[in-house]
């Protein structure tokens, strides 16, 4: 039945043509709607991917991201306001509520105007730190654009980002360099695993206040690759919040600007358009989305050779098992990319793991990919239940940077041996001595009874004859 249901859903998805896996209503909050045209190529790209855009100003009284307790929009793009804050409809508390209800947010910052304290406190909630001096921007004296910022060095040319770690897939790969004009650098806190930098500044970049007249910068906010130009935060419910340090990098003029690197011979075109597409794809849950299909566990006591991959096992997901029996577990994982589900392959050095745990895991096993269907990979493993009875959970807990979290739990009871499931005494070789002891006693007893009765008879007989 689960098969039918998932096929139905897939068919419906295909009919609707929405590309994001979590909805297509997008709200753009711009203080001056006249600036909308500067980003027209970005809007066209978004519309081409199936979003319906609404444009509002934060000063609008009627603006509300919630309606009747639910989200009125699926995604938000917030542009930096020139005034004090984002208005009463977009307080940090409301934006966090929006995240808690699985909405995604793309926030941009600009160094042209000081970042309002509301936004600074919102980012602090997510452990993203902005420089305390509100007028700072990121400058790099070795990787700047000679064409537009030959003197000020405030337009950074950053190469396309590489994979965050060897075991994380890179969702932001583009061809070319990315121009980041007048960015506000962010520092990411260490406290949570939910933060990841998408685009880091070069190792020669630093953050400073251009109005500061000093020759050298003492005690800068952050330098080098500690400065994150585009940061990503994915909450536990997989809601995504991206901070783009430079609003201007989304503008039309930077989408295909000609830039020249320091010491470079010729001018190249920026890859900003492609990069903006990748960032918005990730933020609005078009890429890096994992879906769990069928999950089943069953007793594998060797009756028949079960082809666990394709066919559903008839008796699966029982509520109760016995200790020390063979059990198999399979789970289907798909990765959603823009339009369709495809089989999920974890990176080469990474593993999807199954935990079989009561209070802490008794088993933690790597799931091997057993088979692939059209939409998903089936991961599975077999193991022997531990010698402990109780309430256990099959848990697949797969949380990786830039991927939605997978946390599937199934609870089962594991019972002890029933009274007739213990091995018989003659099957335990150590017990043969005692078995023999009992039967020797019984044999002696039978002999004694025979002798007693016999001697009784003889006595009586003797007495009678006498």
């Amino acid at each position, binding site marked *: 039945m689960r098969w039918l249901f998932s096929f139905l859903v897939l068919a419906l998805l295909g009919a609707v043509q929405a590309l994001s896996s979590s909805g297509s209503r997008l709200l753009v909050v711009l203080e001056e709607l006249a600036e909308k045209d500067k980003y027209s190529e970005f809007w066209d790209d978004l519309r081409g991917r199936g979003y319906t855009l609404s444009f509002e100003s934060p000063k609008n009284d009627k603006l509300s991201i919630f309606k009747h307790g639910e989200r009125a929009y699926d995604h938000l793009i917030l542009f930096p306001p020139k005034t004090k804050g984002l208005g009463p409809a977009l307080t940090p508390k409301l934006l966090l509520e929006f995240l808690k209800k699985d909405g995604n947010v793309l926030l941009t910052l600009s160094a042209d105007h000081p970042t309002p304290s509301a936004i600074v406190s919102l980012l602090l909630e997510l452990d993203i730190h902005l420089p305390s001096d509100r007028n700072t921007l990121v400058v790099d004296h070795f990787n700047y654009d000679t064409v537009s910022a030959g003197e000020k060095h405030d337009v950074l040319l950053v190469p396309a980002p590489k994979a965050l770690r060897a075991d994380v897939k890179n969702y932001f790969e583009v061809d070319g360099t990315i121009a980041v004009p007048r960015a506000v650098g962010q520092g990411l806190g260490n406290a949570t695993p939910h933060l990841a930098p998408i685009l880091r500044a070069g190792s020669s970049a630093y953050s400073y206040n251009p109005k500061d007249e000093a020759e050298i910068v003492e005690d800068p906010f952050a330098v080098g690759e500690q400065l994150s130009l585009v940061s990503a935060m994915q909450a536990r419910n997989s809601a995504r919040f991206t901070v783009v340090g430079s609003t201007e990098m989304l503008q039309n003029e930077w989408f295909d600007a000609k830039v020249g690197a320091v010491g470079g011979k010729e001018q190249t075109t920026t890859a900003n358009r492609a990069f903006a597409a990748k960032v918005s794809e990730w933020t609005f849950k078009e890429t890096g989305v994992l879906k769990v299909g069928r999950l089943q566990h069953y007793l594998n006591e060797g009756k028949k050779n079960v082809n666990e991959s394709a066919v559903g096992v008839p008796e699966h997901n029982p509520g109760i098992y016995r200790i020390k029996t063979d059990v198999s577990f399979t789970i289907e994982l798909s990765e959603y990319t823009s339009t369709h589900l495809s089989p999920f392959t974890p990176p080469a050095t990474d593993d999807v793991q199954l935990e079989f745990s009561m209070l802490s895991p008794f088993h933690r096993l790597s799931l091997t990919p057993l088979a692939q269907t059209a939409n998903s990979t089936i991961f599975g493993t077999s193991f022997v239940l531990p010698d402990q009875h109780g309430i256990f959970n099959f848990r697949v807990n797969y949380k990786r940077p830039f991927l939605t979290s997978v946390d599937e739990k199934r609870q089962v009871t594991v019972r002890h041996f029933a009274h007739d499931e213990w091995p018989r*005494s003659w099957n335990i070789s150590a017990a043969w001595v005692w078995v023999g002891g*009992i039967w020797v*006693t019984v044999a*002696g007893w039978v002999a*004694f*009874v025979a002798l007693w009765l016999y001697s009784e008879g003889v006595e009586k007989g003797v007495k009678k004859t006498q």
Partner: protein
Amino acid sequence: MPPKNRHPTSASVQSSTPKSTPSATTTTSSKPLNANTAQDIVQNVWDKYVQRTPQRVKLLDSFMAFLVAVGALQFVYCVIVGNYPFNAFLSGFSATVGQFVLTASLRIQTNPENKAEFETISNERAFADFIFGSLLLHFFCVNFIN
């Protein structure tokens, strides 16, 4: 008349001749009780036992000795090798111990010397109780060892 004096001994007192029993006494019916050493004491006890006890009681005693031997063997084995299936050890050992107790009670009830105390219980009744108890014991032991 001088008392019968079959063996000229020194200052030992002669005890009365033993009662007639079905088993023949092999000794020459006098009791030299110069029990100086422990070995002599044991020998005397043994001789008295052999002379005095009825045949049937001796049968009972031999069965009890057999049970003690089997039980001791099992216990020594347990001490040396360990009591791995503990229920098996308990079952085998308690078979011998329980059987010993039942046989002991049968002996008490059927010993002619105790006849005065057990007038209401005939030997047959005692033996029937013994059989019943033994069967229960065997059933329990076989069940407990699985």
